[in-house]
Structures are given as C-alpha cells and as structure tokens.
C-alpha cells in the first residue's frame, strides 16, 4: 500500500484511530448506564468492604443506586483539594480523616464545600448522642460539617506477663508520677549487665512523634486551638508537659524507648524491650494482626492521670462523613450517612473487624461490646467504652498539624540545650519557644482574608 508520508506516520494514524475508537466505545457504554443517584468517596478499605456488604439493603429500601469509590488516603486528600480548588462538584457523600478537615473547610464559611449539619443533627436528636468532643472535631465556627464515625479513646496496653513477674499491679498506676516512679524502680533494667538497657517501660518517640505527643497533650486537658480557631500554645501546662516528656525520653533516667511503628514496634514488644504502649481502639487490632503469637500476654488499663482523679483517657485519630453542599440529593445523602452511622449490623461487624467503637452512646449497649476478645482475653469494646465518655475535646484548625510539628521541634531544641539548663530554665526555655510558635501561627491566621468575623484574632 502506498502512503506518501511514510509507514511511520501511517502507523501513528492507525494507532490514534484505534485509540479514538476504543474511547468512543467506552464512552457509549458509560452513557448507556444510568447515572447513580449518589456518589460516595471513602479512603478506608475496611469501611469500603463493610459498606459494600450493606449498601444493597439501603439501595433496595430507598430505590436508589449508590456508586462508592475507594481511594487511597493521600489520593482522597488530593482529589478533594483539587475539587475544592477548581470549584468542581464534590461527591454527594465523602469520608475523610481528621487531619484533612482544617484545610478542606478553609475559606469563606458560605463557600465551604460541605453542608452544615446542625439542623439535621438537631432534628434527628443525634446531636445529643455523640460521645463528648466528637462533633467539635468536625466543627468550624459553630457549624458541624461532619458526622463522627468513631471516638478512638486511648488506653495503655501492657505486657501482662512481665508486670506479673515484676509484681506490679497496673491498678496502682493511677498517675503518671506513680507510673514514672514504678518504671524507674522496677521496670527499666539492664538485665545482662552489659551497660545497655534491655527493658524500658513505655514506647515514646524521642522527638515527640506529633500524634503520640498529641495523645498526652489532649489528656492533660490542653487544647491547642479554641473553638474559634485561635491558638493556645503559649501555655504553662504545655511547657510543663514538654519538659516532663523530655525527661522521660532522654538521659540516664529515661523510662521510654522509641519503638516506632509496624514491625519495629512488634519487635520491641515481643522482645520484652517495651512493656507499655498507648493504644487507641484501632491500634489494638494492629497489635492483634502484627503479633498473633502474643495472644493473652497483653492487658489494658486506663492512662495514668496527670493528677489524682484527673482524666484517664485521650484520643488519637478520627474519621467523619460529609455531605456535599452541591449534592443534588442532600436528603438521600443524609439518609445514607445516617444508615451507615447507625445501622446496628454494620456497627457490630465494624467492631468485629476493626475493634473501633462507635461514637453514639446509644449503641454502646450492643452485646458485641461485651464479648471477650480472644487475643486480649477481656471484653475489649467494654473497656474502651468505659473511658469513651471522658475523651477530651479537640478543636480543629488548618494549622493543627503544623502546631504539633512545631511542638516536636521544641522537644528537639530542648534536647540540644538541656544540659546547660536546670529544671526552671528548661521550663522558661520551652515557654519562650511556645511563645514563638503561638506568634507564628497567629501570623498565619491573620493572613487568612476569608475568616469570618467571629474567627478573627
């Protein structure tokens, strides 16, 4: 066959024609399928699988079709940011993680891409059913944008066998002061006499892994931002906590080892290097999966309080469900959100699969939470529910992650200067550093021209 421009060009033309034909056929097939009534984006595979099991029931009841898409955590964040930036329609219902909230609801309040749910929550009475503080996690300027999916109370998991061997009763570790004293006296030890410590009391990141530090910050009753989003970091309690954290993670008297995550953590726990670890409900499931051979060796206790009678829990992580402001069917999206949040079968299967307790106090009576967990050998759900009512309130901010990073940096700087400072000077040093963080974050907030009047500094 003769083709004047040559065989290469002919090949290219054929390839383009084939590709165009394929796309055309795909488009035709896509156009022939009726569009779903609701689009739903999720990032957790565990959620996706359980929702998929119950969605047909919802679809049959309501006579609608729901298209659910699973995206990786980062992909979901990028997708939502891109949608927000470009002003494209947001899917009707979206689930995302706590750290993304602040950035996604920035801007003028009336242009936040999610519907405020205050009226719906009040009309259904749900507003009074959540564990304390869970709605605040998804609230900006009084508008509740998200339906909480969890509470994530934090407890201490400990090596039951080691404590028994050392004659330590976990019930006596009621305060951190007592905990540190017992750790120094009985737990931290160089067992082989080679100058290397073989057993530490607790897993704590050396530089204050932001999330782990946040557990202690919240438990101490310190909120880094108030309800209006104003920073509260220049705070004597926080400075005191940072100095305390430094003492437990650095120097000859330290009681902690930075065990990290995943396999490193598993190795530290299984090799008896670390005895205690802070666990929100979801992390207990990770321990079960990473260390199946340790069944029966772990126990759970409430966090030691900062002062006698003080709060014995904290919170770590969180997921919420959001209805798009542009949804063509917000009523149906709300019904789906309600169904996914309240369906008892779903709550039970969710707990069995993830150990995560729901945020609705009304659901805490379900029998599944009283069942003894084979790995922990105690009713895991009930143990977390016992402390869920005391979970501290955390107010969100687009700068929450930045604030935690900066606090971790204060720890790093304190470590560098600590040897030249006595206890009082360390406190002053930290206070000064916290003042700088506060001022820097205030500056970032002041730059925001889209804040409502009530949010202005």
């Amino acid at each position: 066959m003769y083709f004047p421009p040559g065989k290469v060009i002919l090949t290219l033309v054929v390839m383009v024609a084939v590709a165009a034909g394929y796309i055309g056929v795909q488009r035709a097939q896509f156009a022939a399928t009726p569009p779903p009534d609701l689009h739903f984006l999720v990032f957790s595979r565990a959620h996706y699988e359980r929702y998929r099991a119950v969605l047909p029931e919802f679809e049959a009841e309501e006579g609608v079709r729901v298209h659910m898409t699973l995206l990786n955590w980062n992909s979901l964040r990028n997708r939502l940011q891109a949608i927000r930036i470009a002003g494209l329609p947001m899917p009707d219902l979206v689930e995302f993680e706590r750290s993304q909230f602040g950035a996604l609801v920035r801007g003028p309040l009336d242009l936040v891409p999610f519907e405020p749910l205050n009226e719906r929550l009040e009309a259904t009475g749900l507003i009074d059913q959540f564990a304390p503080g869970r709605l605040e996690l998804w609230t900006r300027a009084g508008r509740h944008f998200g339906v909480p999916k969890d509470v994530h109370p934090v407890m201490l998991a400990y090596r039951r066998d080691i404590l028994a061997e050392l004659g330590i009763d976990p019930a006596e570790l009621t305060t951190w002061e007592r905990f540190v004293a017992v750790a120094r006296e009985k737990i931290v030890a160089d067992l082989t006499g080679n100058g290397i410590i073989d057993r530490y009391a607790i897993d704590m990141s050396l530089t204050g892994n932001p999330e782990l530090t946040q557990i202690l910050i919240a438990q101490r009753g310190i909120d880094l931002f108030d309800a209006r989003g104003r920073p509260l970091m220049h705070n004597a309690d926080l400075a005191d906590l940072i100095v305390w954290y430094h003492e437990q993670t650095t120097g000859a008297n330290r009681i902690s080892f930075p065990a990290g995550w995943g396999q490193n953590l598993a190795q530290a726990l299984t090799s008896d290097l670390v005895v205690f670890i802070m666990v929100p409900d979801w992390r207990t499931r990770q321990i079960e999966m990473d260390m199946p051979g340790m069944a029966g060796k772990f126990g759970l206790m409430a966090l030691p309080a900062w002062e006698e009678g003080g709060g014995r829990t904290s919170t770590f992580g969180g997921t919420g469900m959001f209805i798009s402001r542009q949804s063509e069917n917000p009523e149906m999206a709300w019904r789906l959100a309600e169904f996914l949040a309240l369906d008892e079968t779903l709550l039970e299967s969710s707990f069995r699969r993830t150990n995560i307790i729901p945020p609705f106090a009304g659901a805490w009576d379900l029998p599944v939470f009283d069942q003894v967990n084979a790995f922990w050998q105690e009713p895991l759900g009930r143990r977390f529910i016992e402390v869920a009512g005391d979970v501290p309130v955390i107010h969100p901010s687009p700068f929450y992650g930045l604030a935690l990073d900066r606090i971790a940096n204060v720890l790093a700087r304190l470590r560098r200067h600590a040897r030249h400072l006595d206890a009082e000077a360390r406190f002053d040093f930290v206070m000064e550093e916290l003042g700088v963080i506060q001022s820097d974050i205030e500056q970032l907030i002041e730059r925001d021209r889209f804040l409502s009047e009530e949010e202005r500094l």
Partner: protein
Amino acid sequence: MNGALTRHFSPAWFFLLPTIAVMGTFLFYPVILAGVMAFQQSSGALAVEWIGWENFQFVLSDPLFYRAARNTLIFAAFSIFLQLPLSLGLAMLLNAKGDRTKGFFRLIIFSPFLVGPIFVGILFAVLFTPRFGMINRFLQYLTGWGLEVNWLSNPAFVLPAIILTALWMYVGFNMIYFLAALQSVSQDLMDAARVDGAGPWQRFLHVTVPAIKPVAVFVVIMSTIGSFQLFELPFALLQGTGGPDNAGLTLVMYLYNHAFVSGDLGLGAAVGWILAMAIFTISMVQIKVSKGGDH
C-alpha cells in the same frame, strides 16, 4: 489569500500541534496560572483576592523557609560533591575492559533507582531504627558504638541520613550517564596520550575529563535540579514531617505543607516560583561556569 496560507502553513505545524496542545495544557497554562496564584489568596475557585507581593513577603520573612533552603542547599552540595564523584568513580571501575562481572555490578548498583524514593524512604526508615535497625546493628558490631543512635530523631543526624539514603539510591543512576560518556572517549586519544608519556592521572585530567564534560555538565545540572526538588525521599523517611527541629525539611516539603496540608495555594505557588527562579539561576551559573574553560 489561500496561496499565502498554503505558503506559510508548513506540514511541520500539523505534526507539532499535538505536542503544543499537550504542553500548552499541562505545562504552560499551569505555569502561568501558578504565576497568577502567587499574587492571590484563594480558597476554592470562588474565593479569590489579589494580595500583591504579600505571599512572597511572607515566605521571604519566614525563618522556616530559610531553614528549608539551607537543608536543600546542603543536600544539593553533597549530591554534587559527594554523589557525582562516587558515580564517576564507579563508572570508571565498571568501564574497565575484560571484566565479565561488570554487567552484573552495573545492574546491582543501578537497581536501587528502580524501586522508587517512597520505597527507599520506608526501607531506610527501618534500617535506621535504633536497637533493631540493620545499620545500627552493623555499626555496633563494627565499632562497639551505634546501637542506640537515633538517626531520624536527632537533628544532627537527619540530614546525613537523607544524604546517605539518596547516595544509595542515585549513585547508580548517575553512574549510567558517566559510563555512557566514558565509553565514548576516543581510545586513539588515550593511546596517543599514553605514548606521549602521560600517566593515569594526566590521562584522566586531559583526555577523559574534556571528553565527558558535556555529559558531566548535564549530570551536574540535573542533580542540582533534582536536589532542589527533593521531596518523596525525606517525606517517606521522616513520615511526612520535616524531622526533628525541621532538620530534614526541604523546600518542596515546605511548599507542600503550606499548599496542601494547610490549604494556602497562593503561598505554595509563591514558594514554587521562588524555587523555580533559584533552580534557573543556579543552572545558568553552572552552564556559564562550565563554558568558561572551553577554549
């Protein structure tokens, strides 16, 4: 009219059109848009305000920006003055004649590049673990010190850890460029220099270096650009943070934090433009300096 059109319309434009369309849509338009955004504060498509140079003023007065710039520059310097000489050295070793194993070693040294920075970052985060990490255990075994070193928690060790990781990952990649350049060095010139009594060092300096210079300049510029764009490796290694006391914060991580974590795209765009200008200036200087010796 038709004649003029035909006269000016070359078939070349027809073939260039797809490239121009793709480049225009995915390169030029975003670059221009980023330029516009750098002078705006925006929150979604509907909330946009012109704020002039305010984003640039904020960035240039932020100590954290200078911290990120300092870290990036140190990393770039190590890339050029440590990584590239090592790559060249390895390339020269593997360019030796008659060694049947060199194909195997080329593959081994190049292979870290194939797995990607995220995987390498995660891998090294495990290797650098105190007490259990292979690097710490190896150091302890070798020197009696190092078991408890917190590479990624001690500000003094964070940048060396990133540099070491990048070295492992990229040294083989740059080696391939040098290897290709070395294989094009004229053997006749080498032989002539040898006959003239030039020793190995003189042959390297006066024959090899001039012959591989164009490739070397290219590799230096690409390494510099790559170093300024460093993001995934420290991001994975430091679990999405800038490390203790921001010792591992790079310019692109600084940009990412403002643009995507805190959601201030205008600020991110301003950082992007400053970064682009810095890369452009440094690359121009490198090209100029490298041309300086050509006579």
